[in-house]
């Protein structure tokens, strides 16, 4: 590999020598020669060549960019700026020119102009693309400038937005706060990404408003009974629990590897994908009773699931997305040690025993128990209230149809 790369460099040098011999007046050849002069610090010589080259080919951005570099070495910054603008006119995504323009604007005290150039520079780097190493320091500087600009903008906005908040003191402006956080690039935008079925035109809401689910009052009121039943089930020993994650293993990059077929995340099912587990329900009569007011996400073969979820000490559930955004998930925390946490999208919540919450598990979420004792949460599936009852019927018919068509075991898995 290495030898090959070197031989390519040799080839390039040989071709360049040949080009010089055959076409010394070719503007691209002159550009290469000028770059070599720049490397040895001969900016004046380089500029002379580049003046000629830009005259004979004024449409080649790389020549204008070299000219800007020569003018920079000669401290002729206004002319450098003009050369950079010519470069960008010909290629608006020329990363080096965008970055260098920002640097010059910054030096002149034009911080907002610099922020704009830096933002354009950052936008012209597609995600996942590696930037050549020499550009990295400038790119970091651009990121810092964009960051500083965001902080300045935040301060600028603060007073004026506070006035709106005071004026609408009774209104819920959580969405607006989140809007601002993403605008200022403090948080990424998270979307619903179901691994199995995407129901369109549903808003992606991390945590739903608790007041939309008044029947949760009954469930919360039964927390002590439910916890006692969970504890007595667990007292029977670890074999009582099933590993929540169970799939064919062997993939070294599987994020679930450490939880696969493991009771570090163990569950005790009362309902498992629509099937009531009668012997388990019999062991938890008060819990079953507390579910009387529960409107389950009922799809034959798929849901609901109702389970005690037991996360062992020092165990983390990796970020993942659920299967189907027609479903929401309810957590009723039963036993919550310190240093446990839960994140959905950009929002974190702590579990508080007896305080239920409802979230959309198709938005990336993760959970952790960094304590030295077990965490137990009661989890049940419900319908997303954004679906009409006709839509629920349709989803039910479709999902069970898909299950029947493909047969058991081929449908849904969390990712």
């Amino acid at each position, binding site marked *: 590999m290495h030898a090959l790369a070197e031989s390519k460099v040799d080839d390039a040098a040989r071709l360049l020598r040949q080009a010089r011999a055959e076409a010394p007046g070719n503007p691209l050849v002159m550009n290469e020669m000028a770059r070599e002069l720049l490397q040895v610090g001969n900016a004046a010589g380089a500029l002379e060549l580049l003046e000629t080259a830009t005259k004979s080919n004024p449409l080649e951005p790389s020549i204008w960019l070299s000219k800007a570099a020569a003018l920079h070495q000669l401290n002729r910054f206004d002319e450098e700026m003009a050369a950079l*603008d010519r470069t960008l*006119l010909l290629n*608006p995504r020329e990363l080096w020119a965008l970055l260098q323009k920002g640097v010059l604007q910054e030096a002149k005290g034009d911080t907002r102009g610099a922020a704009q150039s830096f933002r*354009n520079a950052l936008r012209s780097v597609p995600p996942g693309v590696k930037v050549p190493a020499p550009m990295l320091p400038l790119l970091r500087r651009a990121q810092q400038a964009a960051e500083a600009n965001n902080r300045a903008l935040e301060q600028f906005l603060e007073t004026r937005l506070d006035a709106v908040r005071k004026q*609408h003191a009774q209104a819920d402006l959580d969405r607006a706060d989140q*809007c601002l956080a993403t605008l200022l690039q403090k948080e990424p935008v998270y979307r619903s990404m179901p691994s199995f079925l995407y129901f369109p035109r549903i808003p992606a809401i991390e945590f739903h408003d608790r007041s939309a689910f008044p029947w949760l009052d009954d469930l919360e009121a039964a927390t002590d009974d439910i916890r006692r039943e969970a504890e007595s089930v667990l007292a029977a020993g670890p074999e009582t629990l099933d590993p929540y994650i169970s799939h064919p293993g*062997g993939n070294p990059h599987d994020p679930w590897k450490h939880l696969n077929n493991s009771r570090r995340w163990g569950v005790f099912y009362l309902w498992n994908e629509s099937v009531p587990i009668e012997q388990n329900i019999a062991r938890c009569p008060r819990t079953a009773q507390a579910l009387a007011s529960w409107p389950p996400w009922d799809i034959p073969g798929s849901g609901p699931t109702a389970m005690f979820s037991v996360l062992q000490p020092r165990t983390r559930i990796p970020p993942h997305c659920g299967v189907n955004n027609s479903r929401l998930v309810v957590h009723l925390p039963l036993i919550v040690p310190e240093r446990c946490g839960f994140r959905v999208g950009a929002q974190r919540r702590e579990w508080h025993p007896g305080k239920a919450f409802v979230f959309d598990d198709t938005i990336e979420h993760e959970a952790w128990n960094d304590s030295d004792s077990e965490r137990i949460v009661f989890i049940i599936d419900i319908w997303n209230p954004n679906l009409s009852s006709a839509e629920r019927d349709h989803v039910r018919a479709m999902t069970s*149809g*898909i299950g029947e068509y493909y047969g058991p075991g081929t449908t849904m898995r969390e990712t």
Partner: protein
Amino acid sequence: MTAAADGNRISQLLESADRAQANGRSSDAARLIAEARAIAPADSRVLNALGLQALRENDPTSARPHLEQAVAHAPREPVLWLNLAQCRRMQGDAAGELGALDQALALQPRFYPALLQKATWLERQGKPKQAVHVYNFFLHCLPPPPQLPPQLKPAIEYAQRIVNADRAALGALIGQRLGPSDHETARARFDHCIDAFLGRRRIYTSQPTFMHFPKLPAIEFFERSDFPWLDALEAGTDVMREELLAVLADPASGAEIVPYVDYPDDEPLDHWRPLNRSKHWSAYYLLKDGVRANSHLARCPRTAALLEAAPLADVPGQAPTAFFSMLQPRTRIPPHTGVTNTRLVCHVPLVIPSGCGFRVGSETRHWQTGKAWVFDDTIEHEAWNDSNEPRYILIIDLWNPYLTAAEREWVRTAIAVIAEYGHE
């Protein structure tokens, strides 16, 4: 020779053997492989080459011990397991073939040649529906087209046929269960859901270039019934068209009609370059960025009165914009997304030649004179006029109705203050 030198020598010999084989010089290839074998008989690459050589000669029985030794020496190389699977397949050893394929896929779950073979294995075993899943996954794991070996083309086409046929069958089954869609409102989102599941429609999200307001549904075209006041605007279609045509007929209007796309050349917006400062897509503004174009409003008084009564989006210095949009013959507006999903855009078609169209996300519609629609312009959209006549519509900004009054006030302030700051 050192071990490293041996290693290099073997690589060279095997590469030369591959080249010889590719050029049809089988006996040269065999000689080179034999030479490598003499140096390192237990090297997994040598064993693999010997195995493949035997497979080429249609002799899986001789190949098998070589390939089994190869995986024993290098059990973490998926390609060695794949070759062993191929050998076992030729021997008719279905269980052994599956075992080797599963080893390859456990090491590299997206190893597409092994996925392809596993899909065909499932098909041969009479498990067509499981095969579909693997064919589908195989298609998703393929590298981009330039890196695809050309000999794979028939297999890819076959996999696509199988997956499409399966989706059609599943679609038919679901259709049977649900009965025909009458495309009423209750069914619209669900039909979209099925189409996305069956791969007939792509899922598009809202991608604002400037401000993303969270927890709003991404709706391509809104329900017309959500905007009852549009009745009045639609009823004014003839009046507005008349006023626009009068403006266009006046030679003095030329300078008042401006390119819609107009940005400095150094902005990284090159997809707009063909339309930048071009009258192929031009505007006659009635309101621009929240400012009234008084002389234009005076020339189109009845349009002005209709706009006066419409609940337009209002952000000081930024919105609303209301304009007649003129798309010249044979002109296409490239796919793009708008600035913020707090705003929606409404079209009132005035003059529509045939051969025009408009796509938002996964839905394509055709303008009909006098029929307004409202869409979310932060979902990728594009427009075209493939006719020989110009296309004229009225475009106005509306608030997204999913914002509360307090949120609107917040957005109004935030956008105005950001503009003042000079952020965008």
